[in-house]
C-alpha cells in the first residue's frame, strides 16, 4: 500500500495500540513478579549478629494465600540513613535463606523507645510472601538480613513459620 505524505496508516495505528497494550501488560506482570519474588541467598557471606543489631518481630500472620511478617531492626548507636533491611526465611534443615521482598516502614516509636538521640524512625520492615513459594511441612526461621548503612549482618529471631 502506498501512502501519501501526512496520511495516516491505519495498520500502524492499530499496531501502536496493540504494542502499547502489550508493553503495559508486560510491565504490570513484571511489577507483580518483582513484588512476589523471593531470592535464595547464602548465609556464608553474612556476619552473625553479635548483639549490635536490635530487633523485634511484631507479627507473623499466616493467611489463606500469604504470610505477612512485620518487625523492626536497627543498629543501636547509629543513625539509620541508607536503609537496606530485608526479612528472610531460613530453612532450619538446610540453612537455605529466602530473602523476601521487603518494604521499609516508618516507626516513630523506635526513637522514643531507645531515646538516645539517634534517628531510628526508618527501622521498620514489612514482608509478604505467597505461601506456594515455601515448601510444605518444612520449618523456617524468620531472620533479618541487615544491610543498611553498609552492614551485612544476619539476625536470627527465634520466630518460626511452618506450613
Amino acid at each position, binding site marked *: 500500500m502506498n501512502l501519501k505524505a501526512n496520511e495516516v496508516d491505519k495498520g500502524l495505528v492499530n499496531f501502536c495500540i496493540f504494542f502499547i497494550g502489550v508493553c503495559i501488560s508486560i510491565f504490570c506482570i*513484571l511489577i507483580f513478579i*518483582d*513484588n512476589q519474588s523471593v531470592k535464595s541467598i547464602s548465609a556464608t557471606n553474612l556476619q552473625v549478629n553479635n548483639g549490635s543489631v536490635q530487633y523485634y518481630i511484631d507479627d507473623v500472620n499466616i493467611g489463606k494465600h500469604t504470610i505477612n511478617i512485620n518487625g523492626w531492626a536497627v543498629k543501636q548507636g547509629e543513625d*539509620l540513613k541508607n*536503609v537496606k533491611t530485608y526479612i528472610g526465611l531460613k530453612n532450619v534443615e538446610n540453612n537455605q535463606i529466602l530473602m523476601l521482598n*521487603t*518494604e521499609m516502614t516508618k516507626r516513630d516509636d523506635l526513637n522514643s523507645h531507645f531515646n538516645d538521640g539517634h534517628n531510628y524512625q*526508618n527501622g521498620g520492615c514489612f514482608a*509478604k510472601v505467597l505461601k506456594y513459594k515455601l515448601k510444605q511441612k518444612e520449618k523456617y526461621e524468620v531472620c533479618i538480613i541487615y544491610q543498611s548503612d553498609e552492614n551485612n549482618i544476619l539476625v536470627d529471631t527465634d520466630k518460626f513459620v511452618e506450613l
Partner: protein
Amino acid sequence: MLFTKNKIKKICKSSYFPFIVLIIAMLIIHVKTRAFNDDAFFITQYNQKGFVQYFQERYNIWTTRLIIEFIMMGILTTSFMIWRILDSLMIGLLAFVLSKMFNYEKSAINNWLIVLFMLMYNWIDMSSAGWVATTLNYNWPLTFGLLSLIAVKKIVENKKIKWYEYIIYVLAGLYASNEEQMCIILIPICIVSIIYLLYFKKKNIKDICFIFIQVMISSGLLIFMLTGPGNKLRKEYEIGACFPNYLMQTFTDKIRLGITATMSKYIATPNLVFGFISFLILILVLKKHKNMLYRWIASIPFLTVMILGFGKDIIVNIFPGFAKLTNMPVNGMSDFVNITVYNFYDLRYYIPLVLSCITLGCILISIYLIWGNSLKSFILIFIVILGFASRIALAFSPTLYVSNYRTFIFFEYSIIIVGICVLENLNSILEKSKMKIILNILILLAFLNYVNLVLTI
C-alpha cells in the same frame, strides 16, 4: 526620544515584537524576586572559601555542573539585579529559539502563540532551590540546549551557518550538556540527526561534522558526570536525607515511580499546560478524523486531566473511591498511590500506572493522527519521548521527589512544543470564528497565570 513614531510602529509590527512583550512581562515579575534558599547559601560558601577551594569542594563532594556553577557564582557575586535582567532575556531567548525551531511560517501570530504558551508555564517552579540556582540549572540549559539544536536544523535544511554561529552553538551545547537531563536529551537528538542525514539525505561526513562535535561535547560531559566523585557522594547523602529506602528499589520500581510521579503532575493535578494542549489535540483530531477509535484516543488525555485533575474535588465528592488513586504529596509533589509489597496482588492499585501509560500513549498516537506519515510527526513524537525520558531518568536518583517540579521543565516544554505546532495547524484549518474562541481562551489562561505569578512571587 530615541525612536520616532514610525520606528515604534515598525517594531510593533515586527514578528519579534511578542518576544519584547514577553521580556518586559518577565522583567516585571523578576523585580519582585529575592535571593533565598541555595542562592544565599552559595554566596556565603563562596565568600568563605574563595574561588579555588569552593570549586574543588563542589567537584569532590557534590556536583559536576561546574560550567553552570561558574556562571552562577559570577552572577551571584556581582548583583542579583544582573540575574533579573539576564533571566528575563533568557526567557525571551527561549521564545526566540522556539520560534526559530518550530514557527514554520515565521509569522507574528505564531510568535504570539509561543509567548502565550510560555506565559502559561508555572514559572514559580523555577524558584524551588532559589531563583538563580534553579533557573541557571534548568531554564538556561533548556534554552541553550534548544539554541544549540538550531545548528542541527540548519544542517538538515541545507542552510548556511556563519562562523560566529558555530561558536555560539558550541558554547550553548557546552552549557546545556552540563545539566544531566538536557545532556541525555541532546545526545539522542544529535545521533538520530546524524543517522537521518547520512542514510536518508545522503550527506557527506564533512557536512555533518559539526553535529559530531556536538555529540562529542555532550558525551564528554556525560562521562565527566558519571565519573565525578562528587555525584557519588551526593547520591549517598541524598539517599539518607530524602529517600532512605532508595537502595531497596528494584529496576522496575524505579521505572514505575518515574512514570507515576511524572504523569501524576499532568493528570492528577489541574495542570493548565497539559489540560489546554490535550484540549487542542482533541479538537484537531476531531477536525481531521471521523473514525470513532481515533477520536477516543485523542479524547482520553483530555478526559483524564479534566476528571482527575481539574474535576478531582467534584469527582471525589460524588465517587469517593477515586480518592484512593492518589497519595499524600511527597515533598510537596503529588503522586499516585504506589504499588508495594502491601498491595501488589490487588489489581486496583495498578490503575494509576496503566492510566499514566495510556495517557502518554494516546498523546503519542494523537500526534501521529494529526501529522500522519511525516517528518514532523516523527520529530514531535521523538521530542515528547525524550522529554519524558528526561523525567524517568530522575527515578534513578534519590532526588526524584525532593527535586520537586523544577525537573519537569524539559518534559513540560516538549508538550508546549507540541501545543505550538497543534495551534499553528489549527490556525490554518479551523474557521476564523472558532479559532478566535480558542485564542481568547489561550489569552485568558495566559493572563490569569501571569496574574497568579505576580500575586505569588
